[in-house]
């Protein structure tokens, strides 16, 4: 399995191309990357560590990281659901760091 440091380096390059900014706080990011790598191992796709994938690539695709909900969450709260990707205002503490409510529709959560 790839190390979290290696994975971080990959994401550091990848994020800007997607218009995303990685959370600079390693304490927050490290366990998230561990969770993502673990999900990659068991599901074959790196699904959000803070959501429950079901091992069906079609049903889980909306929560493959970066998830479909990251951009609207960053827009509204300055961070994605699990705080891996954040906004400039978040980094400069211009906005409070809040728990992001779950945006994923219930029907998708229960679809398995």
């Amino acid at each position: 399995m790839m190390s979290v440091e290696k994975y971080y380096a990959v994401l550091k390059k990848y994020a800007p191309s997607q218009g995303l900014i990685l959370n600079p706080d390693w304490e927050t990011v490290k366990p998230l990357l561990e969770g993502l790598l673990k999900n990659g191992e068991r599901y074959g796709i790196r699904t959000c560590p803070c959501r429950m994938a079901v091992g069906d690539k079609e049903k889980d695709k909306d929560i493959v990281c970066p998830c479909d909900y990251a951009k609207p969450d960053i827009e509204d709260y300055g961070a994605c659901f699990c705080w891996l990707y954040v906004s400039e205002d978040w980094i400069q503490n211009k906005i409070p760091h809040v728990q992001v409510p779950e945006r994923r529709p219930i029907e998708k959560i229960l679809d398995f």
Partner: protein
Amino acid sequence: MFEQIVKQGTPLLLALSTCPRCIRMKKFLKMHNISAEIVDVDLLPLDERRSVYRFLKPFNPRLSFPTLIVGDSVVIGEEYDEVKEVLNL
């Protein structure tokens, strides 16, 4: 499914094994010597996960993790002030 545990007042933590918030919540409970029933729902077979969701829905309609249930009190997410309150810490 967990009705008995909840009725006894034993804290029940529904979590995901990959979720850092859940991992920190488990540490918090351990640090405060709280003996809780801890369930990593993502490690259960699919049919058991369905019944966990059925059980969880009235407590947390958004079905997010972590969720801590103590009697009829519920703490959704990593909210330690609320946890201290419901556990009288």
